[in-house]
């Protein structure tokens, strides 16, 4: 497959392109979806394609070539189309290789795993043991292999494999909890623990009461805090800033969060999305994004970096830069300590449907789901239901008052789009609204 990537690049350059990138990907992922406590369908993929990026006279064309036996024809077609397109004056090339990459290898035990039923059973069993009645979710074995070549001398191979399980446990329609298990090593995969957490929250959320709107001190469980930090990571893409899709515009060097928050992006660290290189072939690395509340940089590819007079952060996607994996530096509070700091507030465990009224100001709302708890003096008083967090991303980040001393890897169905390593987070003055009728 290295040959295929190189052949695509060579062909594009022979046809007069100024830059070309080909990332040939073989996908061999496997999934079990489950609902009502058992598998509803199992899925297996055997796919290969080449993600291709060619530039002819600053005219940028991206594509996926599915038929790898006819790459020459496909590249000819792309270059022909590129010639009829328009130049992008902001295009500034791709990174100059060659590069050296970290020698990471997937866990052979993950690669050898071809049946996930026992992990589903472990998760469901864990939830039912805690009192749940009904469980749903998915188990994934992600496996893909990348062969990258660029016209600037980058050549790389990256075999990625990891395990993932998401489980929602329900006692009733309005009493539910969610748990996540992520691991790049089989020995670290804990589906039963995820099921237990989901079941425990669901049971604790029995007979929820209508909520009272207001402003509260809120303890965010790692899964929901991951939704917020995922927003931060995504909105720090320089592309998002330029498109008016970010509240972080013109804020580099300024305070965007409380001094409690230090946050970085790191595609090179161990996570279920670890990768050796970005879409330009630049080695992934740790990039400090927010240091003690001060914004340090956006996420860049070569072109956005030039526009912002800086260097690429190794976060190139095929067209726009994006986060690989978000890490929050843990705080100093144990779980018990951070709970005990909630004198009269809420503990939220999950959310979905985060939407903005204005991306530029950061005004948003998001709807907590699964366990919602009223806390007094660190203890759960009762479960609530039907609330909405109506606030502002910057306001939320600036009002972080404490972070837990342990992080968990979270990723979940759209809301947490890349792995986010997050602790419990205590945030004051959070707007909570409810349906008025």
């Amino acid at each position, binding site marked *: 497959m290295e040959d295929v990537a190189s052949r695509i690049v060579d062909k594009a350059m022979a046809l007069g392109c100024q830059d070309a990138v080909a990332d040939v990907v073989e996908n061999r992922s496997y999934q079990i979806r489950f609902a009502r406590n058992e598998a509803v369908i199992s899925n297996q993929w055997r*796919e290969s394609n080449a993600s291709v990026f060619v530039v002819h006279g600053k005219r940028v064309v991206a594509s996926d070539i599915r*038929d790898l036996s006819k790459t020459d024809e496909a590249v000819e077609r792309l270059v022909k189309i590129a010639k009829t397109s328009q130049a992008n004056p902001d295009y500034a090339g791709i990174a100059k290789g060659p590069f050296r990459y970290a020698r990471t290898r997937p866990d052979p035990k993950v690669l050898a795993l071809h049946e996930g039923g026992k992990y589903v059973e472990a998760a469901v069993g864990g939830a039912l043991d805690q009192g749940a009645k009904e469980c749903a979710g998915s188990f994934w074995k992600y496996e893909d292999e990348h062969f990258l070549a660029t016209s600037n001398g980058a050549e790389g191979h990256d075999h990625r494999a990891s395990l993932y399980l998401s489980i929602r446990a329900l006692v009733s329609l309005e009493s539910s909890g969610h748990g996540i298990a992520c691991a790049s090593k089989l020995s670290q995969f804990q589906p039963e623990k995820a099921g237990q957490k989901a079941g425990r929250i669901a049971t604790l959320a029995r007979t929820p009461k209508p909520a009272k709107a207001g402003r509260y001190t809120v303890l965010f469980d790692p899964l929901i805090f991951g939704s917020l930090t995922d927003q931060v990571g995504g909105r720090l893409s320089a592309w998002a800033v330029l498109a008016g899709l970010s509240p972080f515009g013109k804020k580099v060097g300024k305070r965007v969060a409380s001094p409690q928050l230090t946050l970085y992006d790191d595609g090179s660290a161990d996570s279920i999305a670890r990768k050796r290189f970005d879409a330009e072939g630049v080695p992934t690395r740790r990039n400090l994004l927010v240091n003690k509340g001060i914004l340090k940089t956006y996420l860049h590819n070569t072109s956005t970096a030039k526009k912002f007079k800086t260097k690429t952060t190794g976060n190139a996607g095929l067209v726009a830069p994006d986060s690989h994996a978000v890490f929050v530096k843990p705080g100093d509070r144990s779980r018990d300590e951070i709970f005990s700091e909630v004198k009269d507030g809420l503990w939220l465990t999950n959310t979905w449907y985060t939407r903005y009224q204005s991306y*530029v100001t950061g005004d948003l*709302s998001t709807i907590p789901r699964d366990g919602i708890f009223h806390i007094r003096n660190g203890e759960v008083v009762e479960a609530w239901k039907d609330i909405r967090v109506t606030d502002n991303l910057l306001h939320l980040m600036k009002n972080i008052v404490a972070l837990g001393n342990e992080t968990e890897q979270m990723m979940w169905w759209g809301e947490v789009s890349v792995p986010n390593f997050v602790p419990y987070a205590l945030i004051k003055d959070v707007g909570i609204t*409810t349906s008025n009728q």
Partner: protein
Amino acid sequence: MNAEMDLVDFAVDQARSKGATYAEARYEKQDPENFILKNGVLDALYVGHDQGIGVRVLVNGALGFAATNSLSKDGVRAIVGDAIKIAKASRRKTKITFAQEDSIAMNWSVPEKKKLADVSVEEKIAEIQGVDRDVTQLGFKIAARFFNLSDNRIRKFFANSEGSRIESYSPRLRVFYFLTVVEGAGVEQTSRNYGWSGGWEGISSWGLSDRVVEEARSMHRSLTEGKKSPEGKMDLVAGSQVAGIASHESCGHPTEADRVLGREAAQAGKSFIPPDGLGMRVGSELVNVVDDPTIEHAIAYYLTDDEGVKARRRYLYKEGRVTEFLQNRETAAALGTHSNGASRAVNYNVEAIVRMANTFVEPKDHTLEELLEDVKFGVYMKSFMEWNIDDKRYNAKYAGREAYLIEDGEVKHPVRNTIVELTTPAFWSAVDAVGKDLDFEAGFCGKSDPGQALDASMGGPPIRLRNVHLR
């Protein structure tokens, strides 16, 4: 006979010979093309040529699905083996069954007056640049703007072990735009989405430039003349866009039978409507909400679904009561009924699940003026920006983008960020009049794991709600 249908037939035969009690195969070839014009600059053009085959089998009451883009008999043999193997490994206690449906032999396609394949990249770019140029000449600051034009040509070949054999062709066109208007310290943002099944002629059906210019002007007017939205109980006239999103979110989604049965519980969620909830009252007697894949030129137009079932119009809510769930063959069997052709997949490599198509409030007889003239005090919310709804589809929020105060039946100044935060029954029960002018917008509907963001449209006429709480 063509090679694609041969391969599909081969897959089904292979699956049956290896023990599947039911098998289906779906070959898809998609030719997407799209670009983003960001702040006047063409960011990148994307051109795809995607094809592959997916096989779904039922073995011992369990489902297995496997997909490949290796379009050889060996490739297909391999995925059939995968699908059978993983289905057998499922060890289900309860057996999945499919509702019995008529088998179909059919070949349908959406006509194109001007074929998308014949439209050059230059022509497409020029069209959008023209709109961009118009909107930048309005004399106020548009801080950021991007337009995304995308089209796709989708060819499918479907066969199942019950004798259905269907070939179809759907060309689709879509324009999405996002604008940021700044005035002093104020910011207004909007995103709109238009879709079409058919050829390039769709681009002129929207009057895109006029719409975008009008939208930008209304954003600027909101910033310069807009006042705080009134709070408290009052009347609300919700424009077509608001009626459309509400019909999609709080009528379409809660009537998806897979959601009702808990199959989506961990992702898109469940439903406040229980499995025995047909007949349940959710709105006033004026509320009819329809999902219809057979509306010509609507972006989610189709005549057969991805399980080979004939498509038809579905009344989700009729006279304010739940009347029908959206069904595929699996959910229909579980609920003792028949599929109504709502099973769709975003591509060959994912299973088909229950989906909405074109969902809308059925029009009645009022003009917009008639809806407004009877309002003593209230808000006309023409469009929205922020919206969301909980995972049981009961608590929804729509935040106004373009909205105006109504006093004594007259539209007054713009009001900013009007918030409608109501339960589903509270919203629909407050409807006391329904307009006659139906309009649609396109959207992507998200569901399933792996996520399937699927073409959908939503619409309605303006509707009037009495005495609802606004902020």
